[in-house]
């Protein structure tokens, strides 16, 4: 009986959370189509003009271009740097390995706001701050470790005997990489790539601290317009938010075909011996 009550409480809580989330998200959507909306359950008349308004007034074509460019380059670089490191960390044991893992873990553990300010200071000192390169370099900082920690378990699952057999049969290192490791690690690369893509598009703090006039990503531009509330009609800001949401949702639908939800956060497993 008591077990039933607990279960009921559980579902009620989940239901409450989902209703609340639904309310939050749909309020933004309804508002983006509203002509005017003051204190009524729904707007009296609807329009789509806020989308064209937002697209033109906020220069969204340029902002979207920046966002996609940053995201794709970050995914590519994170995988390029993370792939070999994850392979070695999965295959070898060496002195100082725990220390190295800690080094990779720090950018994920320490909040971006904490290291973002010194990072922005440094980048502005060298004149990279405010540029597209600066944004890419800054957002990449937590993504390289993310790539490594996602890829490591995938390499651990690939039997080392496959590599030995290939070696015995006379395959060169490059052939082993090309014919055995790469195809088998492809699911891992896909998972890591998608998660990094979602994370980069929705990354706010680092992109915000480092971006300048021409290098704002979509979230950063959205923040500036929400923050400057009153200057822009709230409906146009909501239209922009819906465009951002659509982009993330599309990525998420793709992501969830390959990734389990629990993979999207840290793993709290026991440390490996």
């Amino acid at each position: 009986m008591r077990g039933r009550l607990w279960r009921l409480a559980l579902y009620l809580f989940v239901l409450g959370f989902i209703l609340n989330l639904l309310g939050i998200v749909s309020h933004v959507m309804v508002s983006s189509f509203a002509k005017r909306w003051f204190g009524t359950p729904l707007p009296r008349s609807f329009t789509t003009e806020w989308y064209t308004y937002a697209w033109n007034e906020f220069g969204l074509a340029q902002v979207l271009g920046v966002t996609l460019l940053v995201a794709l380059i970050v995914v590519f670089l994170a995988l390029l740097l993370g792939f070999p490191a994850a392979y070695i960390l999965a295959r070898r044991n060496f002195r100082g390995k725990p220390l190295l893992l800690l080094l990779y873990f720090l950018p994920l553990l320490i909040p971006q706001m904490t290291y973002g300010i010194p990072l922005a200071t440094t980048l502005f000192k060298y004149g990279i701050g405010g540029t597209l390169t600066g944004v890419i370099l800054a957002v990449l900082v937590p993504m390289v470790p993310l790539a490594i920690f996602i890829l490591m378990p995938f390499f651990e699952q690939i039997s080392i005997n496959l590599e030995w057999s290939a070696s015995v049969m006379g395959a060169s290192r490059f052939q082993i990489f090309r014919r055995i490791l790469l195809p088998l690690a492809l699911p891992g690369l896909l998972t890591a790539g998608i998660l990094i893509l979602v994370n980069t598009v929705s990354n706010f703090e680092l992109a915000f601290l480092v971006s300048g006039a021409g290098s704002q990503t979509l979230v950063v531009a959205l923040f500036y317009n929400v923050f400057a509330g009153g200057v822009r009609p709230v409906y146009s800001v909501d239209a922009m938010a819906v465009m951002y949401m659509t982009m993330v949702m599309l990525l998420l639908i793709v992501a969830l075909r390959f990734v389990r939800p629990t993979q999207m956060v840290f793993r709290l497993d026991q440390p490996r011996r």
Partner: protein
Amino acid sequence: MRRPRIGEASELDLMAVGFLLPSVLYVVVMFIYPFLYGIWVSVHPLKVPGFSLANYIAFFSDEYQYKTVGITFRLAVPNTVVVVALSLFLAYNMRRGIWLERTITTILVLPISLGVILLGQGILGFYGGKGWLNQMLLALGVLEEPLVLTHNYIGVMLSLFMQQFPFCFLMLLGYISGIDPSIENSARTLGAGPWTVFQRIMLPLIAPGLAIAFALVFVMSFATFPSAILLGQPSGATRTIAIAAYAQAFEQFDMPYASAIAVIMGLFQLAALLIIIVLRQRMVLAATMGVGKR
């Protein structure tokens, strides 16, 4: 010379070093170096030549600045307790899987991916003075006056909860469902009730994971920035330490002072992490299988 066997668990050879080096260099140059540079710059203030702790002294002697530490703690501690407690409740009861589990976890991932800005904008609309919630409660006659839930402390808490609850819940779910069910079954076979199983068997096993989750959520809440701006009073009641650091950097253009505040913020986070790690060491080490939900 013997060609080293592939995948040999051994010392680092040239190939391994070459494979590790690019990513290590990146983290050192873009993470460690800026951090050290930030510390260096924070003790070289703009107004005073040479080494000086003037920025730190300025922070702790100006009430407008040092009270941000208290404000941040008042937001971060209650939020962490609520988030971790509710996540534990939900994750513990879902450890054997429940009806619609995949759907529920998928929906919970949404706030993580949507990001704080969109959530903030939605919370402003939904919970605002003329938002749906207030309209509904007024229409039902539950309230006389609309509730003030945004642009104050509650608004920031709502936003923090929406962001961090899913994160913490999924972490704990992965951890708890990795605990060998036969341990729990043995206790049940020997006659322990559900509460005894939770208190005497499961809680000690979950404790290490709980400690890490607590630490991570606290550290994240302590760096609150966009939520406190969009849903709070960024110049008053919810002026967190991150806002103070940002204001020095990009409104006063005093990077050394901003770095000093960032260092102070980092030290508080580090202290919290260390305390929790030390406490964790003293707990019973969990006999989990080390395989979470995949």
